[in-house]
């Protein structure tokens, strides 16, 4: 059985070792599966393990590589997938009681692409029910209970890719696929101390994945390093005629240049200073420290403010309105009462009351907000900020701004320019990378966002940062 160090290796390092036949995909898979069964259970990280499939894929990979047929960087490398992605022959529960016996007779496009790349599926990661599509008020809103944070099991991982965050942080797989409608890759990556990329809207096909908000849903990798995210994106990216919003092949293609990240034109970085009303001062300091790292690495860094605008309102309203349509059968049948979260049980009824005029108004404001956000990238290559205003919160903490859980109606509080909301609404690529720890040794994340379709510059900046820091190499005590 391989030593524990192997499980914390990057995708790149594992891929090279497998290619050179220094690591056996079968032994590696057996070892990861054992961790998934034991540590994974403690952390509520999985809904379903797929050991038969994994071992079959591992044996096939091993035989092919021995025969000299190497498929590429993910060949023989295990991974996990959020349980809203369809895998033929296995349940796809969407993390929700009403769908716990649901299965589909086909693979999602991303699964097909990973199969072609020779990757090995270990299991389907836990998630917030319906990925929060009908709202939720705490991390307990899941078919499998709250996902526990490997850095402190009494803290939550954040959601909705909660299991994917726990899987990577605890080295139950070297990478996991997450989904992000409004921050569901970025927040768990931040709180779990891993690197998570939310690609540009349309970059990765969603065919075969649960829809929440058709105009905002994206899939993306969560891994140990930005380099690993880029390797995985290279496999997943590309036009898919089965996804209505898949960007065409004539759009700016994603081609990963894994050269030294400080080569080429130096990065011009904007450090956003006005995106949260309240932020943990130590999280802010961690990003300030990162600015100095960037400067030493040859980038220029300048403080800047994001323009005001109803970014968060537009994001929230779009999700509420589109989710009411996506889950209309669940709402109208009354089966939403079987959801775990008190907000999720009711929110759909309220969302059905929005009018078509309001929906279109939001969608007509949205291009203006997109232009406002885009103009920032006339001045900067990327914008950075804390990914979240705090480190991980206690497992059962309630959302203080959840309207349904408070005793009375109160003034609405929204961080209108929250960077994960802005980038989600506008379809911009963004990554969260670890950038420090709180006094309680919980990770802080830094979000790096770039212009639409320029996923490469976001990855370049993140790789530059990780070349000069070691936060991404830290491990939780498990």
């Amino acid at each position, binding site marked *: 059985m391989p030593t524990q160090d192997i499980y914390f290796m990057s995708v790149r390092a594992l891929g090279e070792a497998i290619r050179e036949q220094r690591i056996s995909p079968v032994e590696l898979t057996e070892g990861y599966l054992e961790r998934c069964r034991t540590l994974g259970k403690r952390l509520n990280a999985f809904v379903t393990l797929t050991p038969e499939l994994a071992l079959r894929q591992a044996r096939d990979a091993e035989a092919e590589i021995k025969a000299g047929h190497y498929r590429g960087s993910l060949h023989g490398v295990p991974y996990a997938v959020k349980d809203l992605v369809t895998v033929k022959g296995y349940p796809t529960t969407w993390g929700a009681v009403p769908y716990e016996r649901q299965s589909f007779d086909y693979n999602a496009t991303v699964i097909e692409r990973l199969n072609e790349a020779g990757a090995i599926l270990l299991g389907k990661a836990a998630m917030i029910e319906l990925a929060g599509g009908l709202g939720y008020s705490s991390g307990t809103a899941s078919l499998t209970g709250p996902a526990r944070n490997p850095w402190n099991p009494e803290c939550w991982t954040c959601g909705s890719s909660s299991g994917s965050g726990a899987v990577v942080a605890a080295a139950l797989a070297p990478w996991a696929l997450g989904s992000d409608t409004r921050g569901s890759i970025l927040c768990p990556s931040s709180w779990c101390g891993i690197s998570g990329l939310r690609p540009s809207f349309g970059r990765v096909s969603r065919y075969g994945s649960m829809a929440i908000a058709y105009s905002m849903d994206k899939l993306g990798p969560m891994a140990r390093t930005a380099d690993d995210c880029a390797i995985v994106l290279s496999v997943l990216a590309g036009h898919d005629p089965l996804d209505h919003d898949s960007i065409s092949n004539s759009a700016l293609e994603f081609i990963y240049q894994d050269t030294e990240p400080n080569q080429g034109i130096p990065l011009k970085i904007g450090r956003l200073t006005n995106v949260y009303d309240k932020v943990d001062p130590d999280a802010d300091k961690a990003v300030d420290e990162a600015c100095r790292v960037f400067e030493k690495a040859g980038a220029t860094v300048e403080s800047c403010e994001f323009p005001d605008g109803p970014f968060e309102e537009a994001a929230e309203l779009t999700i509420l309105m589109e989710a009411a349509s996506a889950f209309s059968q669940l709402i109208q049948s009354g089966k939403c009462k079987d959801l775990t979260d008190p907000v999720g049980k*009711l929110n759909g009824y309220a969302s059905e009351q929005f009018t078509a005029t309001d929906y279109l108004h939001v969608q007509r404001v949205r291009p203006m907000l997109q232009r406002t956000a885009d103009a920032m990238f006339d001045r900067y290559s990327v914008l950075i900020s804390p990914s979240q205003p705090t480190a991980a919160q206690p497992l059962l903490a309630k959302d203080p701004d959840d309207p*349904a859980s408070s005793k009375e*109606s109160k003034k*609405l509080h929204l961080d209108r320019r929250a960077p994960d909301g802005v980038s989600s609404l506008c379809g911009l690529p963004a990554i969260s990378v670890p950038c420090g720890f709180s006094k309680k040794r919980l990770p802080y994340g830094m979000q790096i966002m770039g212009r639409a379709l320029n996923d490469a510059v976001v990855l370049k900046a993140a790789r530059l940062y990780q070349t000069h820091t070691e936060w991404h190499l830290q491990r939780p005590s498990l």
Partner: protein
Amino acid sequence: MDDNLSSNRPLSVSRRLFGKKVLTTTAATLLAATGVAETIAPPVSEQHLDLKPEGLSPADLDEVHAKYLNLLRVYGKRLSAEDKQRLIRILTTNQQMLVSIRSFEVQNGDPSACTLRLQT
């Protein structure tokens, strides 16, 4: 640029009370007039709703109220008194977001982000 939500300017007490009164009175009137009350068990008491929405005009509160009544018309039998209170709060929050986004004016020629894309 809209600043309804980011502003700390408090609404006057009389305006809030007026809004609440409008909501209470209209709810009672409409429930009785439309016969909706018969389909709702148990009836919701406005006193239990403890509705204190900030940043909403009387017209906004009317709109919240109309949506609430419609919601009860369709789903009232499924909902407990506690559910109804939660839904009032959710509808109020949704309205606050709508107020913010509606204040952002659009012109006739401003396109929608959701358009039909033709495949080639």
